[in-house]
């Protein structure tokens, strides 16, 4: 018996949701992949990660947030894995001439930017509000004059868990 049968309709709901949101996943792949193979691998990994996160989501977590977190986390892993691999030709190679042309144009206009900037740009393109970015990246901006004391504190149980299980 596989996961989908075991959980009844829940996987079906997740699948439908991901099917509707697949364009977001395609979008982030544009920043981080150069070949069709890489694109497919990253796409599958993000979808699987999002599916896993949504199925085990805790109360208060929104599906969209979890999907975006899956996108960001998996692209980070993808970049880390690329760094471990021997240097390869990183030129853009897609079969479809239309897609190849758009990718070349897009990369040219984006230029050489860091992964974090790519993530920020992706979130900007997806019209994610500025105040929600820290909820996805975990990086809190101290620019707005918010002191450390005013930063939201962790609730007691996860804090205690973190301290007791591993510090």
């Amino acid at each position, binding site marked *: 018996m596989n996961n989908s049968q075991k959980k009844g309709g829940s996987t079906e709901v997740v*699948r439908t949701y991901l099917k509707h949101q697949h364009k977001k996943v395609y979008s982030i792949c*544009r920043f981080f992949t150069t070949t*069709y193979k890489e694109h497919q691998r990253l796409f599958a990994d993000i*979808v699987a990660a999002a599916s896993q996160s949504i199925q085990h989501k805790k109360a208060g977590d929104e599906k969209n947030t*979890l999907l975006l*977190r899956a996108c960001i986390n998996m692209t980070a892993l993808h970049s880390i894995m690329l760094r471990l691999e021997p240097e390869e030709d990183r030129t853009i190679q*897609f079969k*479809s001439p239309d897609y190849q042309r758009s990718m070349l144009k897009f990369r040219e206009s984006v230029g050489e930017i860091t992964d974090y900037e790519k993530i920020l740009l992706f979130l900007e393109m997806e019209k994610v509000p500025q105040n929600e970015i820290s909820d996805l990246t975990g990086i809190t901006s101290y620019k707005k004059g918010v002191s450390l004391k005013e930063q939201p504190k962790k609730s007691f149980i996860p804090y205690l868990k973190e301290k007791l299980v591993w510090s």
Partner: protein
Amino acid sequence: MELKKLQQNWNSFPEVSMEERPVLSSDLEKIVVHNPLSGAFYLKPRIYRRIVAAVILWLFNIYQWRIQLKTGGNDLYQQAMLFFVLTYFIYFHVRLLLFADYQSLLSLKLIPFLGKLETILDKYILSFGIISILAGFYLLAAFEKTLSLLNSAAYAGISENGFYKWLIIIFLSISFYILFLHSVIPKYKKLLVTVRTYRGEIGSKLQKK
């Protein structure tokens, strides 16, 4: 202005053509159940296997320790030490498994996610130290067994001398750790350094801003 141009470019982006695009309806079912984490990023099966193996050895050790206590054998202190090392080994791995919490790992924010991966890898590398100690104990036992079959006089000489046994255990443990340092550990260390550098780069970017 640049951003507006980019946004226009973004909006007019074509879909990956049909022959290059994953078949969503049929493939999605397979995709959603596959594990996105693999290799050294997913240590759960390895940690499980270690816990199961350690529990079996732990039970056998309790049995051996009991025999040593009853008969007043020469290996009483070694069995006691082995018991504590095995207990700590099991505790360490259960703690690591609970900490990793692979089900919710991917739903973390980027920086905590990378931080957690770093900790998991770091602790996993540390676990090879405990394995080396265990290897020292079990290799000595294997050595004694072999010696008892080949030369009973030499075996008697060693088994009655606790000091030599401890020296052999220390020597074997260090040798085993050196072996790990040159075989398995570099792979995990390289990954750990890459994750750490990546996290550092993201953090430093924010500081520059």
